[in-house]
């Protein structure tokens, strides 16, 4: 179509950018609306070349008025040369992510999959393989699709998650976390061994200390504070920044007892922390822990006359004893000094 090129250039000169995007899309869609339009890739497989203009318009970039050539730079109306510089869809996606970087540089560069792609690892997704291309949604809209997207590669984890208390409710409940609520994907990914586990009190605590959210399910919001008050919480706090391995054991975080992708309600027989399973769970770290060992953990209860009265009684004793003892001794020191001052 050699005639339309000067027309397009003329449009470029006179239209404001937004109108240009729409007009340009219209021009591109003259060909690309064709649902049968495909390209046979050299490396096998077909690449659909169809773009649904309606879907794109509703996508986050369509709403922003981005033009086709913003992401497909250098495409002219006569680009249908019959050849592509890539052999597979993945190669195409990787090439496209360089385009994504022109706006989303840090998200790409610090993305969890970026380094393995750089190392040439196979099967690691580039931007559009998770986010899509012409149908990119806002993060909030994308949320419920995340387990499925991640699950297309992380099959085992997704299957386990789908059966968990969180995963089984993901379609109907906005409160449950999806993959990316716990795993940081685009920035500060917890890659060193144990880093994610050490951060679980913070990660899980984001929802589990939110009283508004937890009230709906009758779950205590003291789960983090009671964890921190215990031995594991103390050690894991002081272990921040420590890596697991080389004889370094990390203190148990939330997921070490409750499970990771398989977290169940605490009264579910499958739960790792239900009384019947707790001894086995403790034994993961405490080899040979006897039957009475799990009672050493107060199950997130704060000591009270009803729960753990022995611990409560010891605490009350010292709450009285320490001020009484120290106050008494200070009083006597005061009297001593008074006596000395009086005699002088």
């Amino acid at each position, binding site marked *: 179509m050699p005639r339309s090129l000067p027309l397009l250039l003329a449009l470029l000169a006179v239209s404001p950018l937004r109108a240009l995007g729409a007009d340009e899309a219209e021009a591109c869609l003259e060909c690309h609306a064709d649902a049968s339009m495909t390209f046979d890739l050299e490396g096998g497989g077909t690449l659909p070349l169809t773009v649904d203009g309606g879907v794109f318009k509703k996508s986050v970039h369509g709403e922003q008025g981005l033009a086709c050539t913003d992401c497909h730079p250098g495409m002219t109306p006569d680009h249908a040369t019959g050849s592509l510089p890539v052999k597979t869809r993945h190669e195409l996606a990787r090439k496209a992510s360089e385009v994504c970087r022109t706006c989303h540089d840090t998200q790409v560069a610090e993305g969890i999959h970026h380094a393995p792609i750089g190392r040439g690892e196979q099967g690691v997704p580039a931007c559009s393989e998770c986010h899509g291309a012409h149908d990119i949604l806002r993060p909030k809209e994308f949320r419920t699709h995340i387990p499925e997207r991640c699950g297309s590669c992380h099959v085992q984890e997704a299957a386990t998650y789908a059966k968990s208390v969180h995963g089984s409710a993901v379609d109907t409940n906005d409160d449950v976390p999806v993959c990316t609520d716990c795993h940081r994907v685009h920035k500060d990914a917890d890659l060193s061994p144990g880093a994610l586990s050490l951060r679980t009190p913070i990660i899980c605590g984001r929802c589990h200390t939110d009283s508004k959210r937890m009230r709906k399910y009758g779950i205590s919001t003291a789960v983090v504070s009671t964890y*921190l008050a*215990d*031995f594991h919480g*103390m*050690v894991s*706090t*002081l*272990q921040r920044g*420590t890596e697991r391995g080389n004889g*370094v054991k990390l203190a148990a975080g939330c997921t070490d007892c409750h499970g990771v992708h398989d977290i169940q309600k605490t009264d579910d027989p499958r739960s790792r922390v239900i009384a019947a399973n707790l001894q086995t769970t403790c034994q993961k770290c*405490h*080899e*040979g*822990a*006897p039957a*009475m*060992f*799990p*009672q*050493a*953990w*107060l199950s997130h209860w704060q*000591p009270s006359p009803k729960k*753990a009265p*022995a*611990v409560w*009684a*010891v*605490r009350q004793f*010292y709450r009285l*004893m*320490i001020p009484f*003892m*120290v106050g008494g*001794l*200070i009083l*006597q*020191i005061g*009297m*001593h*000094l*008074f*006596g*000395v001052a*009086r*005699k002088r």
Partner: protein
Amino acid sequence: MSVEQAEQIVRFSRKRRIEHLSVMALFVLLCLTGFPQKFYTHRWADVLVHALGGIDWVRRIHHLAGYTLAAVTVVHFGTGLAGILSRQMPFSMMPTRQDFEDVFQQLRNYLGTSPRHPLYDRYTYKEKFEYWGLVMGNVIMVVTGTILCFPIEATKFLPGVLIPAAKMAHSNEGLMAFLVITIWHIFNVHLNPDAFPFDPAIFTGRITRERYEHEHPLELARLEGRPPPTRTEASPGHGPAAGGEERA
């Protein structure tokens, strides 16, 4: 009379000086490695833990110091008990009725309602209180510390809830011991106006006869084979300042 010329009396034997020195060093070490674990959310605790090589090292040092202090305590009890039972050693730390009378006499004297000052034997009620406080505190720390070191073995025959109870007791007893030592012990031995700023007696083992006469007249009389000074006569006072008045 200058200090150089003053007649010195050995108050603490070599064995007692070594015992005090080891307990002191271990106590400092246990505090340095214990309190960052109790107050772990504070910045200083984090800094201290990292300076000591991380929480694993802090715990190793704490455990080793704890075992050593337990051993010192056992040796102290063992030799003390053997000495007392074989009548080789007087049970001079035994609290007596006189100690309770001394408390009230001493406080009346401080407040000015009685001019008399108690006449002390080898150990004053303050020293006995501190000794028994330390010894009993040590027993609590050793027992709870052992439970915390061996939770698996402990729960083979004890209910599991004893472990958090032991932790609660260990942590609070440790804090109380620290407060009693830093406030009461340091005041009584170093900061009180008679000794200020520092009393080296527990390190050198010796104090002047003059001071002995004022602080432990009953023991001195017994050491020198004299009859004890009667409690009804006017007190020689407590420490060098009061002693000066007496000489005048």
